[in-house]
């Protein structure tokens, strides 16, 4: 959509926003399907398969969360309630099905989770979506804590501290093929991938429907919506129920993946906060932002946590910097840079980004060395003063290590700030030129599309 359309002679449909099918869209979705299909063939380790499976259902969960946050302006602190309760409904259904009491094949279990999530969204959403803004956020927080603590009081359903376990291999194999039992992780991955693709497509389609658009309108200006015939509560409530459905599907898939659900960590505010944080990091203002968020969430919780004990601290810092410098998340970083490139103004930024990367790496290395040494002295002092960090051996008892790390942080930070200032100047300049260019094109062509709308 970068080029200027000539006049009004455009195919109908294009003019009206999202057109269900066109070449670019088919290509994009084809690539998404291909990526889901070949990912486990490219990354063959069992760790990779574990990560890919988690990414698959977390994409669904983060996208469903963004239906609230990005599309509806509803800051929910309790999304884990719907994934978690969906998980519990799913796991009990699996156990009943395994006993032969319910005829539900495993491939439909995520849908059962979805209906579970939807049921509780109907219940709790009725209360929370009566309000918007801060009040809505507070109600979701309260409901989330309520459900999380109540879950521990009903051990027969929630399994108490130990949780509920299940076995995903039950009933007749899928499609009658003896090897399709969903026992092997790779089969579970493809089940997750299939759901991931379909749910992503459905949630994307939702953005192009009357309710999806009115949800944006309610986000931007709820009062005005009431004066064009819509009940804002009903718009929010309906969207909340749909988000609960997809959240429950994600919960159901997680159940199949882990074969265990634990009330202590699947329903609580920390889990909800994780969905919020990574949806935000990925980028709530673009549909695909939460997909990036889900990938980051898995990398952070599996890889970063392996690498260092201080991973939550690093995560907090990253979140802080993103909120301060790139509040639109990774998706917005990508899109704004693409916009600059589209207008042919990316030239000076190669060097600036390289500068930011080098000075940023120096600063981060200095800061991380300090953090790791502090953690080592506090937690691993018994192992001796030696600490292995980035292939280096640091001696926490020697002043030299501390001085060097602090110097690295100071020098790196100073240089980073210099580069950052240049970057901000160049960026502002480029944006001004782009705005001027857009205005010029609008004037000259009476052009309806100058890449102004998202």
């Amino acid at each position, binding site marked *: 959509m970068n080029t200027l359309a000539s006049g009004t002679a455009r195919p109908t*449909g294009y*003019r*009206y*926003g*999202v*057109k*269900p099918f066109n070449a670019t869209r088919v290509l994009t979705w084809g690539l998404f399907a291909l990526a889901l299909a070949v990912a486990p063939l490219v990354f063959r380790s069992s760790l990779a398969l574990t990560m890919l499976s988690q990414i698959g259902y977390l994409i669904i969960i983060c996208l469903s969360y963004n239906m609230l946050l990005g599309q509806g302006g509803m800051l929910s602190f309790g999304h884990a309630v719907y994934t978690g309760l969906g998980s519990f409904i799913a796991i009990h259904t699996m156990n009943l099905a395994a006993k032969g009491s319910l005829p539900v094949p495993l491939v439909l279990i995520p849908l059962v989770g979805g209906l579970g999530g939807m049921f509780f969204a109907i219940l709790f959403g009725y209360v929370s979506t009566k309000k918007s803004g801060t009040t809505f956020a507070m109600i979701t927080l309260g409901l989330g804590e309520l459900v999380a603590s109540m879950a521990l009081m009903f051990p027969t359903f929630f399994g108490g501290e130990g949780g509920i376990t299940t076995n995903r291999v039950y009933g007749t194999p899928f499609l009658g093929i003896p090897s399709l039992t969903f026992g092997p992780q790779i089969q579970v991955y493809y089940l997750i991938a299939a759901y991931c693709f379909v749910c992503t497509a459905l949630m994307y*389609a*939702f953005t*192009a*429907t*009357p*309710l*999806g*658009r*009115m949800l*944006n*309108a309610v986000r*931007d*200006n709820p*009062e*005005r*919506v*009431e*004066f*064009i*015939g*819509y*009940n804002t509560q*009903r*718009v929010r409530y*309906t969207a909340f129920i*749909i988000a609960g459905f997809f959240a429950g599907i994600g919960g159901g898939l997680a159940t199949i993946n882990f074969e265990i659900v634990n009330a202590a960590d699947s329903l609580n505010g920390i889990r909800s906060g994780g969905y919020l944080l990574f949806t935000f990091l990925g980028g709530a203002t673009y549909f695909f932002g939460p997909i990036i968020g889900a990938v980051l969430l898995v990398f952070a919780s599996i890889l970063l946590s392996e690498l260092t004990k201080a991973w939550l601290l690093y995560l907090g810092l990253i979140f802080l910097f993103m909120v301060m410098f790139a509040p639109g998340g990774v998706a917005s970083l990508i899109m704004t840079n693409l916009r600059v490139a589209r207008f042919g103004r990316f030239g000076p930024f190669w060097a600036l980004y390289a500068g930011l990367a080098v000075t940023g790496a120096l600063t981060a290395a200095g800061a991380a060395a300090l953090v790791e040494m502090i953690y080592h002295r506090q937690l691993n002092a018994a192992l001796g003063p030696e600490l292995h960090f980035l292939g280096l051996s640091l001696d926490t008892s020697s002043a030299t290590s501390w001085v060097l790390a602090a110097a690295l942080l100071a020098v790196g930070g100073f240089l980073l700030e210099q580069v950052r200032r240049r970057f901000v100047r160049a960026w502002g300049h480029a944006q001004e030129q782009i705005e001027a260019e857009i205005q010029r094109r*609008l004037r000259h062509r*009476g*052009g*309806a*599309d*100058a890449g*102004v*709308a*998202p």
Partner: protein
Amino acid sequence: MSRVPNPAPAAVGDIAGGAWALELKDLRKNFGKTEIIRGVDLAVRAGERIAVIGPNGAGKSTLFNLISGRLAPTSGEVRLAGRRIDGLRPYEINRLGLSRSFQITNIFPKLSVFENLRCGVLWSLGYRYTFLRFLSRLDDANARAEELMRQVGLEPKHDVLAMNLTYAEQRALEIGVTIAGGAGVILLDEPTAGMSKTETAHFIALIKEVTVGRTLLTVEHDMGVVFGLADKIAVVVYGEVIAFDTPAAVRANPRVQEAYLGSAVADAQGGH
């Protein structure tokens, strides 16, 4: 969740034999012990253009808020085509055929011009809360939004986000969103506020054009505009309608001159 055909708005078009498009009966509004609207009676025929004038703080905007459901009256009645609407929610009143604009521009800033207008037409075409149809396939809604865009002169700005429009364009879009649902009674709260003389003249022509066949109530400060636009003028002073008559009669009314008009005309002539 599919499309539900709406009944035609009750207040559209002619209303036969003495029925009123909009009727206010002893309408009152108190904020605490302060009476803001102190017993307003007003009856407007279908198709009439009414200008509501009065000094700042007289209660003009409050009156509009009471009629459109933004505020609930303390007592009294509001009737739309004979049907009581006081106490109803704004969206319910809108569905019955009354739409309003706002003094401070009130549109969807992050949606494009086209999307703003399409949002305005969706309910009236019966699409309601559906999520089982694509917007791009709603031919009637898209055609209607295109037509509105031409009417308010924003066609070249089709895909421009509302927040990137000029002030005058935003005011035009506000009018477009207000008339989009096809309401028979239109309330415009200071549509030309903050515009230059030239812009105002152009804008009043636009308002006249797009409200043909509809009942219009507008709050307006520019006396030249008021006398050119309105069939009748309602003068609101201190929460009461002190005169409601044709422009000529209102101009000649000594009570109006005393209370308000003289100073306002002087203001207007003073290059306000």
